[in-house]
């Protein structure tokens, strides 16, 4: 759907911005792993909407939240909106992540602002009785780690890694994954990852070696967000081994890591 949503809260969180929107129609049906397409400017330049995954979905209050980084002109303009302003949003778009079978042990791996959908996913899994969740967050530096509050409120185990060592382990989040994955059961463990391509690739490799199932959430430059334009494609390998492009917006944004062709 396409609608105007009121900004209820818009605050800085370290290097990022947290945007809370009142959009009950979207909150009612949205699932973790999906996204909204926001029109950041009411002018023709920048032209396209910008996709943002859900950081939080609250069906009861009708609130949806996104956590974003100012990266270019679209997000720069977005960061200027105030509480009480209305934003033109489309969503929910993409496929939501379904809850794995009972008794699954989950590792959430997030890199930088890509960690945002992990918060919505943690809430969803927790509310569906998947409580054994290990959260691994990485970033270049301390203020680029996403807030821990959502994970903390669920009482989850959190480990952080920063490349400069300003918080937590000094190194990559994938180092933390290597260290932690050993203590999980190969059969019950499921890894979800979202972040930069290099991080996703390394995560997929670790999981593949450990024979642990891994789901990656992909990011792509998008035009339509609904499957029409074929812009946001990523290469995947189908069962028979042939490689094909799939649309991140509609066939994703999450994919089984074994299918993804890393180029």
């Amino acid at each position, binding site marked *: *759907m*396409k609608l105007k949503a009121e900004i209820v809260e818009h605050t800085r969180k370290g290097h990022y911005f947290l945007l809370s929107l009142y959009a009950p129609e979207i909150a009612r049906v949205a699932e973790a792993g999906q996204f909204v397409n926001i*029109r950041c400017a009411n002018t*023709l*330049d*920048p*032209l*396209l*909407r910008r996709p943002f995954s859900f950081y939080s979905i609250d069906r009861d209050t009708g609130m949806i939240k996104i956590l974003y980084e100012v990266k270019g002109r679209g997000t720069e303009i977005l960061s200027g909106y105030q509480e009480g302003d209305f934003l033109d949003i*489309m969503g929910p778009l993409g496929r939501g992540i379904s809850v794995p079978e009972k008794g699954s042990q989950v590792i959430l791996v997030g890199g930088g602002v890509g960690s945002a959908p992990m918060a919505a996913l943690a809430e969803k899994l927790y509310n569906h009785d998947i409580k054994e969740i290990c959260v691994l967050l990485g970033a270049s530096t301390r203020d680029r780690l996403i807030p821990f509050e959502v994970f903390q409120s669920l009482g989850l185990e959190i480990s952080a890694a920063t490349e400069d060592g300003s918080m937590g382990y000094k190194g990559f989040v994938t180092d933390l994954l290597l260290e932690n994955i050993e203590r999980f059961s190969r059969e019950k463990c499921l890894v979800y990852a979202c972040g930069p391509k290099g991080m996703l690739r390394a995560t997929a490799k670790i999981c593949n070696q450990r024979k642990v199932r891994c789901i990656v959430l992909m990011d*792509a*430059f998008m*035009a*339509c*967000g*609904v*499957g*029409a*334009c*074929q*812009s*946001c*494609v*990523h290469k995947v390998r189908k069962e028979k081994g042939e490689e*094909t*492009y799939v649309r991140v917006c*509609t066939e994703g944004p999450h994919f089984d890591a074994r299918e993804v062709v890393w180029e």
Partner: protein
Amino acid sequence: MSGEVDLRVDIAGIKMKNPVMTASGTYGFGLDYLQYYDVNELGAVVVKSITKNRREGNPPPRVIETPAGVLNSIGLANPGIDCFIEEIIPQMDIVQVPIIVSIAGDEIEEYVELASRLDKQDRVSALEINISCPNVEKGGLEFSTSAEQVEELTSSVRKATNLPIIVKLSPNVTDIVEIAQAAAAGGADALSLINTVLGMVIDIHKRRPMLGNKKGGLAGPAIRPIAVRMVWEVSQAVEIPVIGMGGICTAEDALQFIMAGASAVAVGTWNFVNPTAPVDIINGLRDFCLKEGIKEIKDLIGCAWK
């Protein structure tokens, strides 16, 4: 109120209840926007270009945002004619308005084969011949820049089908009027213009073109004045109707094309930004006519020439 304005247009025998259609490649197969409005409010649906064989399309990145525009190089990604006929046309049952199928190929024979196969499909109302995709190695642009080739291609397709033929022209030519006349001479029933304008963006950090395919086609509001000018020139030089497109976002934009001589218009890139744009434009055209005392939208076609 709607009864007071007659928005109907007839393009080469395609009866449309209003002059607003979707531009090929921006609307999939008419099924991606169903949750936003009733597709049957449109004048017609133009589907993504179909080729003989399935095409994976070009390597990403396939699209770059530019000032008031989008540079794209999708590379005619499509499932191929077999899948289109067997799987997609049945899914398009919900589309009751005319379906115009865009076809593309590397050789004249490929266009001919596509046309003769689609000729037998009841649900297909017309063919749009995409001779102007700038993003594929062969065919495409080669056809569109030579008047002789355009005439030969059009007349070859003409012999293969009784469906109305719309030839989609490229702006990347020295004289678009010459190409338009060649298409008309070859038996085209209508013309679509413009396709995208060839362009490039360089990533200065990588010191390489940004698009996976290096060059791409510029679309969106940035190209609108080019398109309006070309519609103006072509529509006065040929007898067949012209469908105008290139950066149309609003009813005001659509009116510019109609007044420049377009008998119908297509919404392209703007579908991505405002998925309800086509219906907003239809309503806007009706409002404009009501306000200006225009009884039939046809009366506005080419009114800027005088």
